[in-house]
Structure formats: C-alpha cells, structure tokens
C-alpha cells in the first residue's frame, strides 16, 4: 500500500502547481485527522495501534478524500468528512477489510450533502488569471470559512463539470462551452494535466503489478463507450468521450478508488461488473443527475451491490455440475 501512496504524490504536486496549492493543506489536514481518528478507534476497539496505524490504509483514504474536496474547504468540514469516513464507514463496519463502502468516497459524499454551499467554492485555475485566491484569502477560507471573505465570487470559479452543467441547464449548447478558455484541450485547463499525471501513476502501479489492469480499463472503456454513443447521438447536449475520460475524477477514480479491494467485488467477474457499473453510473449521474460529478456516487452505489455481485458471480468449482 506504500507504493499507492507514492504513486499519488506526483498527481498531488501537479494539482498544487497548476490548480491551487490549497490541496496540500487539505491533504496534510486530512492525513493528520485520519491518523488521529484511526488511533482512537483502534484503541477503543482494543486493537494493536502500532501495527495498524501506519499500514498506509488510512493515509490512502485521507489523500483520496482530500483530492475530492475543494482546495479551499474549511478545516472543520475536512474534519467532519474524515471522522465520518474513518469512524463510521471504516471501523463501525469492522475496520480494515470489513467496510462495505469506500471510506474516502463515503466521507466526501457525506460532506458534499451536508455542506453544499461550502463544498462548491472552487478556486480558479492559476493559468486562467481570473483572480485565483491568494495566500491570505486561502488561509482565511480554510481556517475561518466563507464568511470571512468579502466577495467570495471574485476568487472562486466553477469547475469544468459544474460549468458545463450550468451551461446546459441554461439551455446553452456544448459547443459554446468548449470555446471557453477554461475548457482547455479536452477536459479543463490545468485539470487535464492532473488527470494525465494520475493516469501515468496508475499505469506505473499496473506495471509494478500492485493493481490489476482489468478494473481501470473497464471503468474507462465503459465510460468512453457510453459517452461515445450519446455524443454521436447528439453532440450538442452530451459531452465528448475524451472530456469524460480525462476528467480528474475519472482517472483518479479508475486507478486508485475502484481498485480498492476491500469495498469492490471479490470475484473476477464481479469486479468487471463492478467497474463497468461505476463507469456507467458516473456517466448517468454526470449527464442526467443533479450533481456535476457522479464518480463518488457511482462508487457508493456499486459498493452497495457488492454482496449481490459476489453471490451471483461465484466461479464454477472444479467438477461442479459437469456432464461427463
């Protein structure tokens, strides 16, 4: 699991460089909160703290969670999500190996639903020069919250997915959005580079045989194919397959979240169905849902189906029901 943490580092750095350095603060806070929460829960449950605290599992949870939330998220929201993820989603279900839901995704969705206004404050990408929040503004946002900033709209901006959704909601066409400077090459200025870094890190993990290629490939292929069909059907209201695939959440999720063995199906067939389901549900929620991004919801939805998947995809045992 240590390699997974290492593989996340380049993506985080690129994120900090091209989008906003606030992500480093979020990562740091999330990891500290998570370690504290984990230590408390291990102690409460009477488990050896030393053995489990630094097994990297809770650190991965914290980093994935921190990458999902905005770099400008207030610290108490960060804390709420982490406490929910570690104490309830992970330990209340039996700790490492026992949790039904992915803790990082559940923590993220918990704060997304609980604090919708704060969770929607995203910084503008540096390269767009549209007034990205400076040092003081950032620290004020993180440590005192939204109310401490006089004009919040001056320093925040919609993410490409949010922007696209609001554009479409305003009866505009995709074409008008793709000419917007923040669209970048295919999936958002700056952000697409973050996505590509996660893709490279994910491929490295595949190469090192730490994760299997089947699940990420299935997620990406499903998302690509579904969006291709609808893009071909009406390119005016459905985003291009490349836009869907090169979004940060898709590539981070496909290689680092879907591949979490604990909360995904455990049979080979079950895993493929799980991955395909995540790809499909992500597209459905992004295109037709109320939330701009659907990856976390898609993962949680498929998590809930895991017991069923495992039950119905048990492989045929050697010599079982053969007609000789």
């Amino acid at each position, binding site marked *: 699991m240590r390699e997974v943490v290492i593989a996340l580092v380049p993506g985080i750095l690129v994120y900090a460089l091209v989008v906003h350095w606030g992500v480093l603060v979020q990562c740091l806070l999330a990891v500290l909160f998570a370690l504290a929460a984990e230590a408390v829960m291990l102690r409460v449950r009477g488990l050896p703290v030393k053995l489990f605290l630094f097994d990297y599992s809770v650190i991965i949870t914290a980093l994935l969670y921190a990458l999902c939330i905005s770099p400008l998220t207030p610290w108490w929201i960060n804390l709420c999500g982490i406490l929910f993820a570690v104490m309830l989603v992970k330990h209340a279900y039996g700790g490492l190996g026992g949790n039904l839901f992915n803790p990082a995704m559940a923590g993220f969705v918990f704060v997304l639903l609980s604090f919708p206004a704060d969770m929607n404050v995203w910084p503008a990408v540096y390269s767009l020069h549209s007034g990205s929040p400076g040092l003081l503004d950032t620290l004020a946002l993180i440590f005192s919250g939204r109310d401490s900033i006089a004009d919040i709209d001056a320093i925040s901006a919609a993410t490409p997915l949010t922007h696209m959704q609001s554009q479409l909601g305003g009866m505009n066409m995709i074409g008008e959005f793709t000419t917007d400077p923040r669209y970048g090459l295919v999936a958002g200025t700056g952000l697409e580079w973050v996505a590509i870094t996660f893709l490279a890190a994910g491929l490295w993990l595949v190469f090192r045989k730490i994760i299997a290629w089947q699940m990420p490939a299935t997620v990406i292929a499903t998302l690509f194919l579904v969006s291709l069909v609808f893009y071909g059907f009406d390119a005016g209201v459905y985003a291009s397959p490349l836009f869907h695939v090169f979004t940060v959440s898709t590539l981070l999720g496909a290689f680092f979240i879907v591949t979490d063995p604990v909360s995904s199906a455990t049979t*080979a067939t079950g895993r493929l169905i799980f991955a395909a389901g995540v790809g499909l549900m992500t597209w459905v929620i992004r295109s037709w849902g109320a939330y701009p991004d659907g990856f976390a919801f898609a993962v949680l939805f498929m998590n809930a189906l895991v017991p069923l998947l495992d039950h119905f995809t048990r492989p045929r045992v050697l010599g*079982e029901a053969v007609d000789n």
Partner: protein
Amino acid sequence: MTRTLHRFSGGLHLDTHKHESRDVPSMLVPLPGQIILPLKQHIGLAARPLVNPGERVLKGQIIAEPEGYVSVPVHATTSGVVRDIGDYHIPHPFGIREPCIVIDADGLDELFPIEAVTDYAALTPQALQEIIRDRGIAGLGGAGFPAHVKLKEGVDNAVDTLIINGVECEPYITCDDRLIREKAMYVVSGARMIRHAVNAKHCVIAVEEDMPEAHDALAGHITAHDDIELVRVPTRYPAGGEKQLIQVLTGKEVPSGGFSINIGIIVHNVATAAAVYRAVTRGEPLISRYVTVTGEVKTPRNLQVLLGTPVSDCLKLCGYEDSNDTRIIVGGPMMGTQVRDCNIPVTKTTNCIIVRRKIPPIQELPCIRCGRCADVCPVNLLPQQLYLYAKADRFDETRQHHLFDCIECGCCSCVCPSHIPLVQYYRYAKFEIALEEQRRQGATRAEQRFLNRKRRLQQRQEVKQKQKAGSTTTATESGDTDADRKAFVRAAVARTRSRKERGTDR
C-alpha cells in the same frame, strides 16, 4: 500418438528445491533397534493386532489384520519380539497418539516365508486384488488410500485410463524421482499389472518436465508392445494432485464430491506401482519405502527406510544435529505437518522429512479481499469467502462455497499478503462440521430414545387404566384373573430356567 495436454486453473510456480537431494543415490537405512508400527497407516479403519506382547515375529509376517473392507494389514518390517501394543505419537498435525505395535528388533532380520507369483497374467483380477491387499499396499503418494479398493472399483466399473502418477509437484520432495531412476523396471511392470487387474483401455505414466532422467529411465523399460504412454507435464504446483493431473492429461474434471472412477479414470502413484510389482512377482509385503530427507541437514538425500523406523534415525543418518532453531516437517513444505517429536515412525505415507530454520511468527493481518488466493486456487474456490465464513463459524455458508472440494494444497496461504494461514481455517471448519454431524446423530438417537420411552410409559399407563377399569367392572371374574396370573408366573419361571440351561451349555 501424442496426448494434448490441458491446463488446470490457478496453481503456482514454486522454488522447487529439488537439486539438493535428487542426484544423490539412495541409501538403505540400517536396522533400527526398535520399530513402531501404527495400526492405521492408510485411509479407512485401523488394522486389528494379531500378536501379543512377548511374541516373536518374523520380517514380513502379518501382525495386524485388516478391519473391514477399506483397510490393509500391517506387516512386521524386521524380525524381533513384540514389546508393546499401545498408543504412540504418529506424524499428525495435532500431535496425537494412535495405537501402534512396538517391536524390539533382534538384528537377525529373519524372513517370514513368502510366496511369489510367476505369471500375473494368468491370475484373475480378484486374485490380484487379494494379493495386493494381503501385502498391505496403501497409496504411497501421500493419502494412503488402500490400493486394492481402487482396483476393485476398476474391476466393477469400466476403466478408460489408468494413470501412474510420478508428478512430484511439491518442492523439496524427490523420493519418487529417485525411485523411478533406480527402479524404473518395477514401476513399469507394476503399471502393467495394475492395468491387467483393472483392464484399462489406456495407460499413462506421467512425470514432471523437470524430471528428465526419470523420464528416460522409464522410456528404457517401456516396449512398443506395452502401449503405455509416457507423458511429461509442465512443472506447476499442484500438477501432481489427482484431480489436477486428470485435468491436465484428459481435460476431464472429477465431479465435485465424486471420485475419479466416476469418469472412468484410476490414478496410482509410481511407488504404489513399484510396490505392486514386488508384492506380486516376489511376494514381498510393503515394508519399506523411499523417503527424502532434506533441508538444513549436512547431506540431503533419499533413504530406503523400513516402515516403523524412527524419523530421528533417518535424520541422524543425513547429518542432522538437534538444535533449537530448527523445526522438522514430515511431508512437503506445502501440505506437510510440523512435528514436535522426532521419535515418531516413518509410515506408508511418509514421503519426505524436511529440516527448516525456525522463523519468527508472522503477524496475521486482516483479509483485504484482494482475491490473490482465488487466482491461484486450482479448484476455483473463493478462499477469501471461505475464510470469512469459517472464521465466523458460519459452516452452512462454507459448505455452499464448496469447502469439501478444497484439496488443502496451500496455494492460497502461500500468496496471501496478509499472511493468513487459510488452510488451517478450512481444516478447522471441516473438523467442526464433522463434529456437528456426530452430535446431530447423537441427538437423533437421544430423541428416538426419549420418544420410545414416552411411548412405553403411555402404553403402561393405558394398560394400568384398562386393568383398573377391568377390576372395577368385572369383579366377579377375579378368580379367573388370579389363575391367569399364576399361569403367567409359571411360564416366566420356565423361560428363565430354559435360558439358564442354554447358558451353561455354552
């Protein structure tokens, strides 16, 4: 005709560790001072002792007879005096004691007269089975299934293929390799005899790809007339498992919960074939076997060991010095069992003795459902789910997940990143289920007893009530009932008397 080989799913490429012992010629172990012969060295019922302490026995004499059909006799492996019949430690994962016959060797090694058969082809399959049973032959591959039972199955059912298994897939073990190289003729001749006994259409002798010398030795004894196929199968653990070997050679699957004979196949180990040859043409009972002694010893090699020889004698012969930082494993590294006591005897199923360095206990971590175990399982089980259910004592679910199809090969434990000794959980679950079955049978019996008693009491009550009713309503007939009673007593006395007389007659 070359046979197209198939693949079994899962499995592992293991470090074979065969070179340590495979190229050294085998050595005869000198006569030990004392021989300990367990009455049960095979699957089935234990044999029943025929000798008493103090009695002198000869080498090759039957000292315990088979009990029931799935059982084989035990032969004295040297001449001497029976010292004791009692419980001694045997090679077993739980370190239990089982009934054994202990013989003090007199050093004369005097032979019991034996009878050889010159022309096996003239014998009926039944006669051949009798001989094989009388000579105490149990499968020498590891499970110890009585050989004659497999032969009888073969006679009763149509046998398409007889497989002689020389695929020694577990690391470290080279006893079959050595046996083939030194006694290839025995193996081939034994194969012919078994084939004759079961009337098999095809006969295949299989060895592993990394046993070229053994292959050549066998090829030298197979004639064109034989119509025996010699096949080399790829080296992958557990290719030598019966179900896996059948799959590799024929592409067929042994039905879950069934036996290979259900699909017309019989598998015997090469050492069993060699033992059959010796039993038939020389009349020799099964009293010795090849055993690999390897690992942390000065001279790893194969030994020809008289059954009942203490493991410690074999170890000493290979230059083993007792020390605190080694552990001793009887059997292979994957499926063998660690033993605490070196004075346990070599039995019919002891194929290997490994000395290994002690390793500090590794902390067992939680299962993260990574599924590597499922990838390597040769039976396509879901070890991670089985583990979960076994740990939670949910035995119905373990059965639904085919616990009893597990061959305990240990591939899953070997790859587990959380160091979970999975096979131990499965053994535990199997043990608990067997226990539960016994308890249930006991409970059914108790219930039956209870119901019977209830019925008896009820009947008694009814009779009493009838009698009461009878005595009040038919008081005038009391004289008759009195006479009846007297007659009843007389009859009872007569019965008892006749019973006593019969008893004294005996």
